[in-house]
């Protein structure tokens, strides 16, 4: 148990310490040239305390930074009244450690990968303008609570995004392909051939007729629909009565062909996790089963309001970064 959690016992009813330490390298090629190389090294921690049923938070670069506990306790004096308690120690299904080679990737490795991919694209499409982003991310995330949780996990992945802008359409429209892996990326020829084929479509654009048409959504576009659905499945929206799905559990809400599952433990996924950002064990779950709503995405707070079982959906990260200054949310 860290000193901070021990100290918290004399001034608060419960405490939770969340810490991250991440390292990311990012290379951007624009029009075939390296625009910039960026490294991001983030160490940060968030402390939450419960005192007299109220929640207070503070944030700092490290757990030994002066005033972290004092600030959280001060905030709890006026804090949000909550009915939950921080996570207790329970068995966690651990995922496999990330491929250690991913964490060891250097900027030179990323530059070499980009140069190799660009060369192979230009071999097929000599006039293509090639824009690329390549990055690697490695980090450690840990959660500790005064209720006995003390858990940490390493993560790591590599990413490559390539854009081939269509001629005469400016720089914002083009063929795009992405690759994401927990191991160093190996870009196969079919991946490149498909990207170049998509790029050739841009040379023969056609304008579809307006009106109601049958549409085939690519997986990326289908994901946009899922995102809209997830807003309605957010436990906070459900608890506040703002979701149209709030009272539809065990009801048919979608076509029976549609099933929505989540499995943060899936070893095939480059980004996986065995516990959420509140230290709750993650588990495979069916949220919509053949069109029937089975439950919601919940953090500890919304779970307590919904009287739902632990879901392990709490996340502090935003879509933009590992910004821990946001409170955990489903």
């Amino acid at each position: 148990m860290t000193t901070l959690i021990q100290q918290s016992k004399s001034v608060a009813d419960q405490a939770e310490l969340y810490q991250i330490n991440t390292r990311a390298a990012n290379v951007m090629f624009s029009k075939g040239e390296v625009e910039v190389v960026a490294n991001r090294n983030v160490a940060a921690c968030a402390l939450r305390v419960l005192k007299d049923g109220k929640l207070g938070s503070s944030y700092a670069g490290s757990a030994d930074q002066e005033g972290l506990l004092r600030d959280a306790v001060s905030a709890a004096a006026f804090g949000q009244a909550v009915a939950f308690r921080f996570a207790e120690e329970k068995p966690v299904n651990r995922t496999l450690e990330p491929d250690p080679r991913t964490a060891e990737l250097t900027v030179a490795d990323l530059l070499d990968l980009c140069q190799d991919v660009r060369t192979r694209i230009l071999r097929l499409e000599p006039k293509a303008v090639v824009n690329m982003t390549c990055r690697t991310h490695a980090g450690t995330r840990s959660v500790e609570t005064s209720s006995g949780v003390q858990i940490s996990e390493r993560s790591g992945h590599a990413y490559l995004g390539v854009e081939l802008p269509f001629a005469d359409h400016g720089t914002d429209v083009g063929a795009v392909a992405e690759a994401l892996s927990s191991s160093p990326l190996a870009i196969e020829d079919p991946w490149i051939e498909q990207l170049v084929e998509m790029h050739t479509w841009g040379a023969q654009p056609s304008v579809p007729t307006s009106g109601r048409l049958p549409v085939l959504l690519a997986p990326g576009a289908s994901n946009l629909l899922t995102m809209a659905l997830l807003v309605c499945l957010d436990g906070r929206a459900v608890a506040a009565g703002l979701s149209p799905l709030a009272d539809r559990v065990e009801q048919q809400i979608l076509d029976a062909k549609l099933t929505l599952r989540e499995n943060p433990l899936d070893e095939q996924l480059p980004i996986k996790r065995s516990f959420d950002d509140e230290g709750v064990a993650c588990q495979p779950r069916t949220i919509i089963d053949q069109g029937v709503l089975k439950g919601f995405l919940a953090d500890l707070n919304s779970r307590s309001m919904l009287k739902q079982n632990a879901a392990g959906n709490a996340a502090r990260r935003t879509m933009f970064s590992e910004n821990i200054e946001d409170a955990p949310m489903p």
Partner: protein
Amino acid sequence: MKEKLRAALLDLDVDYADIRFDQEQKTQIGFKGDQLEQIATFNPQGGHVRTYYRGGKAIASFSKIEDAIEITRKTAAAARAAAAHHREPIRLADVPMIQEDFAIHATADPRRVSLAEKHDLLSHYNSIAMQVPEILMTQFMYGDSYALRTYVNTEGTAVTYEHLISHMIGIIVGKRGDAVQRAYFAVGGSEDYGRLLDRETLMEQALAELDELLSASPVKAGVYPVVLDPYGASIFIHEAFGHRSEADLTQEHPMLRERLALGSEIASPMFNVVDDPTIPGRGGTYPVDDEGVRAKPTQLISEGRVAGRLHSRESAASFGEQPTGNCRASDAGYGPLIRMSNTVIEPGKHTLDEMISSIDDGLYVAGGAGGQGGIDFTFGARWARRIRHGKLREMVSDANLSGNLFSTLKAISMIGNDPLMLEYCDCGKGSFDGVQMTSRICAGAPHIKIDAATVGGVS
């Protein structure tokens, strides 16, 4: 701190390097309805380093000052590696070396106000809104942020400077029958906590607008002569024009570079726009930017002609123009990029009455309900009011204003003598290492009259 940063830059085999370290203190309080959603204090710190070697550029952010030397060495090595993949050397425009410490002087410093007092003030404004029976939801947020920044580069510049800002914003949603509308409350946007106090009149004004809006009919879509209030005109100049003045957004855009060439006529001769980080007590006020360039006003439009644009040292060298001191980072985790400061439409000679009375059939539009800026823009109105036979008439709802930047600038025919600076503003801009959100910007304008503006509505 300066010595630690200088030590990190010693003996680097690069053409140029700079390093910044930020020590911050922040407070956030949030209510949703009568529920307190968040109350927290933050003490983040971190640094950012940039290294240039021939055509290679590498940047890095870090959290601990102890890591500065190692990170800087690695970043220099990355710049050298990148140089092999970039043909042209990257140039930086020359700027004078600065060795100075800039301190902020706040009349009422939010850091000296207790958390309890901040909580109670936010709760007070929230409760005023909550007392209205037709209120469906409120969301009120308080934020303050202090940063002590230390900056050193290999050319000898070494400065410390401070940023301090506090604000409160509120969104109030009301429902009457099937009509759902919202009102906004935003105060502060400077180092002076006193601006947040005694603002009940503004809150009551927002609630009165909401009350009228809930019974208003939707605007009929069409092309109208429009008087845009200072809020809407400020957002227009920031979003539609200001971002096009940021050199990094026009650099790779041949059409924009041509349309916005210095000296090009883009508006009537009465139209003047300046970006001025030296205006005292505003969100976009600062003494020096985050690459050690002293802040100064930049005239963007002078008598209707493009007079300047906003630069980093890198873009200034690329354009062959002078640096303007607009290269700024939102916080320690990010490198600097070109941002506006306080962007202002300068006042004209017309009164609001003259503008209204010049319109036979048109709209008065109170802007500020979000939107998308660009060469083609769309902004939502908080509310609008019909103008008939030179008089303000009934309020209409659901109006939004859209148009093309260049044709709209040409259609501005009257500029008010009643300039107003916005209080709270925020702005996001994508950068290589993520989207940087900042509230350290501001915009201002008087009323302006647009002869023909496209107004969209639901009827």
